[in-house]
């Protein structure tokens, strides 16, 4: 149990940030018109690809000859990049529907 309390003690700032971020996230989108539900979901999905940062850190810290980590890391980066790039690109396409048609 003392390991858990020690973990909390060592990461207390992070835990503060985490809790505040929960409240922030709940407030940031309060009123969304139905037509925007899918694009918003898609945009948020692209942001959740932020896990790519973790994959980059993982690879940077790996030994250059540790092929197990490097190959899994490569896969992780590739997958997360698909999530990020594809996510933002597809959201952009969806939002083109809202462009005012020119008369």
């Amino acid at each position, binding site marked *: 149990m003392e390991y*858990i309390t020690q*973990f909390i003690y060592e*990461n207390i700032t*992070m835990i503060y*940030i*985490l809790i505040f971020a*929960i409240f922030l*996230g*709940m407030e*940031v*989108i309060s*009123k969304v*018109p*139905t*037509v*925007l*539900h*899918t694009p*918003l*979901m*898609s*945009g*948020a*999905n*692209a*942001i*959740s*690809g*932020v*896990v790519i*940062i*973790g994959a980059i*850190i993982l*690879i*940077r*810290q790996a030994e*250059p000859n540790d092929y197990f*980590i490097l190959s899994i*890391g490569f896969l*992780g*980066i*590739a997958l*997360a*990049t*698909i*999530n990020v*790039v*594809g*996510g*933002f*690109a*597809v*959201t*952009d396409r*969806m*939002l083109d529907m*809202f462009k*005012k*048609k020119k*008369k």
Partner: protein
Amino acid sequence: MENPILDFLYLICIVLFIIGLKNLSHPESAKKGNFLSASGMILAIIITLFYPMEGASNNYLVIIAGVIVGSVIGYLAAKRVKMTAMPELVSLFNGLGGACSMLIAFVEFNNLPEGANLMSGNVLTIIFAMFIGSISFTGSIIAWGKLNGALRDNLVLPAPQFVNGILLLAVIGFSIFIMMQPELNFTWVIILLVLSLVYGVTFVTPIGGGDMPVVISLLNSFTGIAAAIAGLIYGNQVMIVGGIVVGASGTILTILMCNAMNRSLLNVIIGGFGSGGKSAGTDREQVVKEASLGDTAIQLKYSSKVMIVPGYGLAVAQAQHTCHELEKSLEAEGVEVKYAIHPVAGRMPGHMNVLLAEADVSYDKLLELEPANEEFKSTDMVLVIGANDVVNPAAKEDAGSPIYGMPILDVEQAGTVIVLKRSMNPGYAGIENPLFFGEKTKMLFGDAKDSLGKLKNELSNA
């Protein structure tokens, strides 16, 4: 090692994410919001590449190769997908993000120092990241399969709630078991991984195809949470805040989506099916969807063609002038507005023509029954204002109906139908109108004049 400038730039990434999400929830600024979030992401990636790290061997080649491969695949997939297949593509993308969290957690298990105590917050974090990442991965793949038809819509495993409960208990029990071991046995980790992956499958499988958008939104918030927990492993603020904000806002969005369908989240997850009831045309689900003023105004604004179907209710409410004003505001936004006049709309022939002429509605905007019916197919939205029997599909479908055989305005051909009505009371003929329960129909209750005025106001805010 720390670098105050880079740490500050990380904060800017977080701010870009949050402003981006905020902008994404409004049609005017949505494109800008998407751009801001994407800029935040690019900045975060660049910072992470150059953030000083003690003894890091960097392996930039692997990173760059991964980014290039992912960018090409992601970009091509996003550009080539058909408009209708977008939700399932989003689901697939989401699953890949979850898979990345899962892979990171898996490797971090491997990276635990020899002889490390397993009863630690660190191990708990890794287990969480792996579990949630796995659910998001396999769950999204199942949702993707259901949406594109690869999996049967109504595919159900026996006793899904029981199986899910058992699996969840197994995952929790097994996690505790691993943490209590004196040293790490990698076989246990793999078993935990497999259990988590299977849970993702059984979690989504019982949910019906019609509810998939809600499930994707829920899984999207899972991916955010998984990213945030992976961020805890590295103590990385961008991952924590970015992930959690998506997790929390995704949960709110999921609830909003449920509300729009008149369902509760629990009902979607446990209740199973939102897809039935299509077999018989007459067997419609007797649930009325209520439209909100804000939504309706925005939808009107972004339509290219709107058809107004006036009825006796317009006359009663003396709403013809307000109606004309709404029409003018819409035309100022570049929306084409026309009126569909049914021969027996109102209480006398020509009732509507007189009424609208009084309000200075231009005569060439008034369409009679047949030309109107031809135009509904290319119409985005229909506003039914106080009309009932003249748009009642029972006249076509139900041989037992007293108005069977009467020609009607076929409003269901249009994209969306908004019915302005004071209450659910039946019309002049005293019969139920299945249109009101239709899939494309939403009801806007209230006095017609009042509602039209409010719609016009919302239009200038939207």
